[in-house]
């Protein structure tokens, strides 16, 4: 298995404060990497550094053997890495299918092709029955799925999901878990998932990286993470209390 993403000693400072300091890990093709950590640990900041929203203050991000830190998000998307948002960002006045088409247009100039690609992705997230519904009017669960469909439509090799289950009920979360596993089974797409729901993350991840106070606390298989005393002390213990 080849390495698809390598994060090398990434630090991000805001003013004097370090939101991330010296974080390193890497992703193998086809895997699901889970990322956990308490609120404010710097997970989303790390996502922003990886996807080009902030340039890292130090360190570099290597995607498919190419240095991407410093590139703009749109370039990074066209290279094959796409993210979803913790707080959903639907293109509210556009319809469901138009939202996904915007993603698909990353790979084609033809609206017809884009519409076909978008319809395929809507089927993947099981929303093919309401393509013309305005995205802003969808319930939160469907907005989250729409985000995933829109991201998939850009035909990524690496998909970064930022708390895609946040705010969902158990049934909806379960649907997302199935979706993530299906994407993995489909092959060709590596995923990195920020999640709060410990059960979910243990179930889907091949490996997990734990971020605490902006630093990498631990990395390993779900089993190793559960048995890591430091993680238990810093995060899990807290979580179960």
């Amino acid at each position, binding site marked *: 298995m080849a390495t698809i993403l390598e994060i090398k000693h990434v630090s991000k400072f805001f003013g004097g404060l370090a939101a991330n300091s010296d974080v390193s890990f890497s992703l193998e093709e086809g895997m699901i990497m889970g990322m956990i950590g308490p609120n404010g640990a710097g997970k989303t900041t790390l996502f922003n550094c990886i996807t080009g929203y902030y340039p890292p203050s130090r360190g570099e991000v290597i995607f498919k053997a190419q240095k991407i830190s410093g590139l703009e998000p*749109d370039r990074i*998307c066209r290279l094959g890495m*796409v993210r979803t*948002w913790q707080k959903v*960002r639907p*293109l509210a*006045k556009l319809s469901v299918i138009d939202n996904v088409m*915007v993603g698909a247009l990353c790979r084609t100039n033809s*609206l017809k092709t884009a519409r076909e690609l978008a319809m395929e992705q809507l089927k993947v997230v099981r929303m093919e029955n309401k393509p013309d519904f305005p995205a802003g009017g969808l319930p939160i669960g469907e907005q989250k799925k729409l985000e995933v469909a829109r991201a998939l439509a*850009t035909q990524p090799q690496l998909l970064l999901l930022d708390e895609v289950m946040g705010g969902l009920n158990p049934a909806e979360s379960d649907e997302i878990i199935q979706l993530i596993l299906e994407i993995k089974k489909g092959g060709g797409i590596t995923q990195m998932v920020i999640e709060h729901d410990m059960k979910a993350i243990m179930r889907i991840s091949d490996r997990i990286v734990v971020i605490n106070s902006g630093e990498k606390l631990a990395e390993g298989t779900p089993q190793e993470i559960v048995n890591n005393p430091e993680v238990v002390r810093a995060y899990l213990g807290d979580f179960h209390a």
Partner: protein
Amino acid sequence: MKSTLALIRTTAGTSPVATALGLAVLAGLFLFPSFVKSPYTLHIMILFFLSTIQGEAWNIIGGYTGQYSIGHVAYFGAGAYTTMILMQYKQIPPWYGMLAGIGVALVVSLIIGSICFRLQGPYFVLASIAVAEIMRLSAINLKDITNGAEGILITEIPVFKIGNTVVTDFLSKVPFYYVGLVITLVTILVTWMVQNSKLGYYFQAIREDQDAAHSLGISLPLYKNIALALSAVFTSLSGSFYAIYIGYIDPSTVLNLDISVQIVLVCIIGGIGTIWGPVIGAMVLVPLSEALRSDLIAGMIFKTGLTSEGSAIGTFLKENLAHAHALIYGILVVVVILFMPDGVLGWVKKLTVQKGRG
């Protein structure tokens, strides 16, 4: 003509009735001058065309892309001044001047775009006003080129010939009517093409959520610049057309910030981000401002008997309503923004939806 047909068919829906209606309107517009000879009516129609062109043009950057420019008079003035200066001092006919005007407007748009579109926030609005003001002050100060505050007056337009055949001598309002109509149709057609292309999707994605658009592979500066450039081209065309039609320009008529507000108003009254919004906006605004200017409204108030022409209020109305159009614009902006932010079109849509439900 074929594409115009396609435009009508698609925008009016595929129903044959709508298509027939669209064709009838189009035919009516082309035959209009054969039936209506009144120069004043033709003048109103030409003003309506001008307003529609400006509204549609602003709509591309403001309505579809969501980047409000309150300095669009810069492109209007660029078109007007370039065309007039070339015609007056270099004897270059206005149809070439229009192209030169487009060139100048493009340069101005790229300057504004490259400064502002790297930044998020209100900078674009501010910078677009600043550039418009720089142009107005330059037009006043660069007397050798622009004739300063006195402005440029042209007395005759060269005869338009293709080969040796005289097409028109521009002596009546009819040729202007047709030029205005054609530019209007082209502008609407281009807007329609934009809306139904990748560009339109990308523009609207930027309007709805810049960060999301950015994450989906859309280069924000690139597409905002394209939208602004497209918008500048047609605004400049309207400026050139206005200048040749009126035959006189000065900094306070073609580079006045009020024009920028008026352009935005056409759009927001009709409904921004829609093809027909600016058309409807122009249909509301042009007659309204003409009625104010020609004392029609004061006359109507007297007729209703609310107040008489001789009374103090009557004299006040008669004297001031003609100058009050800017006040009315102000009130309209406030009312529309507070109570019908989606314009007339959005308001009608809402009404029909409610009716459908009830």
